[in-house]
C-alpha cells in the first residue's frame, strides 16, 4: 500500500491518480495508522513552507513519518515535500523543517523570473532506481520559488539550470526527493513514479 500524505497542501488527486497507474493500492490520508502501515510513502505539496510545517505539526504526524523513514520505508518527497525534509527554510524568515536531511532551502535570486515555472531539463548525476529507463537530460515540470541546498553533496541525485545550477533531485538511502512534479511531467514523470512504486 502506498500512502500519499494529505497535509492539505496542493493538488493531491493528480499524485494519487498517477501512482494508481502502477497497479498498487494508493491511499490519500493523514491518519497515523495509514502512514504506519504503508509500504511506500509520498509527501507531495505546493505552497508555503511555513504553512506546510504548520499543518504537519497540527496533524501530529511528523514523528510517524520520521519513524517510518528511519525504519527504511521508501519516501518520495515532491516539491514542497522535498523542501520540508530539510532542516531549515529561508522562506518567511527562518523556518525549521522536518530535518531528516541536513541543508537549507533558499529563494531564487534577483534577475530571474520567480517562480521558476515550466519544463526544464533534469541531469542525473548518479545512478538511481528513480531514473531507470529515463533518458539523460529529460524534461520535467517545475513550479517553485525556493530550492533545496543539501549539506551532503553525496546525496545530490540531479541538477537543473535556472540562473543557478540547483539541486533538482536528492537520493539518500530510502529518501527520494524531487523539486519537479513527476505527476505533472507526462510520460517521463509517470515512468519515474512507476520506478518508485517498484521499490
Amino acid at each position, binding site marked *: 500500500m502506498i500512502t500519499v500524505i494529505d497535509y492539505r497542501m496542493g493538488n493531491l488527486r*493528480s499524485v494519487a491518480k498517477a501512482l494508481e497507474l502502477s497497479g498498487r493500492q494508493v491511499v490519500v490520508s493523514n491518519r497515523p495508522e495509514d502512514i504506519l502501515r504503508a509500504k511506500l510513502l509520498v509527501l507531495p505539496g*505546493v*505552497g508555503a513552507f511555513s504553512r506546510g510545517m504548520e499543518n504537519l505539526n497540527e496533524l501530529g504526524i511528523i514523528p510517524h513519518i520520521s519513524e517510518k523513514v528511519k525504519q527504511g520505508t521508501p519516501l518520495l518527497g515532491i516539491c514542497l515535500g522535498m523542501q520540508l525534509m530539510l532542516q531549515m527554510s529561508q522562506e518567511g524568515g527562518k523556518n525549521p523543517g522536518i530535518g531528516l536531511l541536513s541543508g537549507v532551502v533558499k529563494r531564487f535570486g534577483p534577475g530571474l523570473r520567480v517562480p521558476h515555472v515550466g519544463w526544464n531539463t533534469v541531469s542525473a548525476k548518479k545512478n538511481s532506481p528513480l531514473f531507470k529507463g529515463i533518458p539523460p537530460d529529460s524534461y520535467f515540470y517545475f513550479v517553485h520559488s525556493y530550492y533545496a541546498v543539501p549539506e551532503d553533496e553525496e546525496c545530490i541525485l540531479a541538477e537543473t539550470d535556472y540562473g543557478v545550477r540547483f539541486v533538482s533531485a536528492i537520493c539518500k538511502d530510502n529518501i527520494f526527493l524531487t523539486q519537479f512534479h513527476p505527476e505533472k511531467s507526462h510520460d517521463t514523470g509517470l515512468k519515474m513514479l512507476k520506478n518508485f512504486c517498484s521499490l
Partner: protein
Amino acid sequence: MLTKRIIPCLDVKNGRVVKGVNFLNLKEAGDPVEIAARYSKEGADELVFLDITATVENRPTILEVVKKTAEQVFIPLTVGGGIKSCDDVRLLLSSGADKVSINSSAVTNPGLISDIASEFGSQCLIVAVDAKNTGKGWEVFINSGTKPAGMEVVQWAQKVEKLGAGEILLTSMDRDGTKDGYDLEITKNVAEAVNIPVIASGGAGSLQHMYEVLCEGKADAVLAASIFHYGEFTIEQTKKFLSSRGVSVRI
C-alpha cells in the same frame, strides 16, 4: 534550460467544449477530457479550461470534468472562469486542477489575489488581464472585455504581482480572434515591468506570430485556441518551427 510553453485553451460550457475541435478521428468533438488527453499526447506543455457556464446551477459540472481529466492527463491544468472565492479555488484544486485563473474578480476584489496566494501559494494563481488600446493608452477591461476597469494595464500588472499573483495571462482584446498576431508592444511592456512569468494570449494566426511574441514580445508562454482547435497547426509543428528558430521548447 527552461523552455517556453505552448498552452492550448478550451472553452467549456456545461461540461462540454464550446464549438468543439476539428481533429481527425476524434469520436467526441465536445468532450473536454478526451481533447485534453489528445493535446497532452501531442506535446502540450499545459492546458487551460475556461469555464463559461452561465448559470450557477450548472457550475459544479466543471469539477467533474477536472476530476476525470486528472485521471488521464498528467500535465498541469489551469481552470478559469467565474472564480470568486477561496472556496471556489479549494474545490478546483482538490478536484485535480493545479492552478486557477481569475480575471474580473481580481479587479473588483483585489484582496482575493492575496487571499488565494496566502492560502494556496502564488504558484497556483494566474491573474488574467484583458487589455485594450483605447485613445488613452492601454486599459484593463473586465466582463469578457466589455467593461473598462479604469486602470492602466502595466500598472495593474505590477499591482497584481505585488498582491501575490504567480503568473499573468495577458490578452489583447483588440487582437483576440483576429489571427493578426499577438500584440507585441503591450506584451513586452508587461513582461519588462514584472518579475513573474507572462503568458501571451489573443491573436495567434500563424507560427510566426508565436515566435514573435515569445521573442520580441518577451512572453514566457503562449495560449492559443482556434489555431490548434481547427487543426491549422499541430503542437508538434509549432514546436518544430520554434525550435528551428532557436526558441527553447520541450520536444
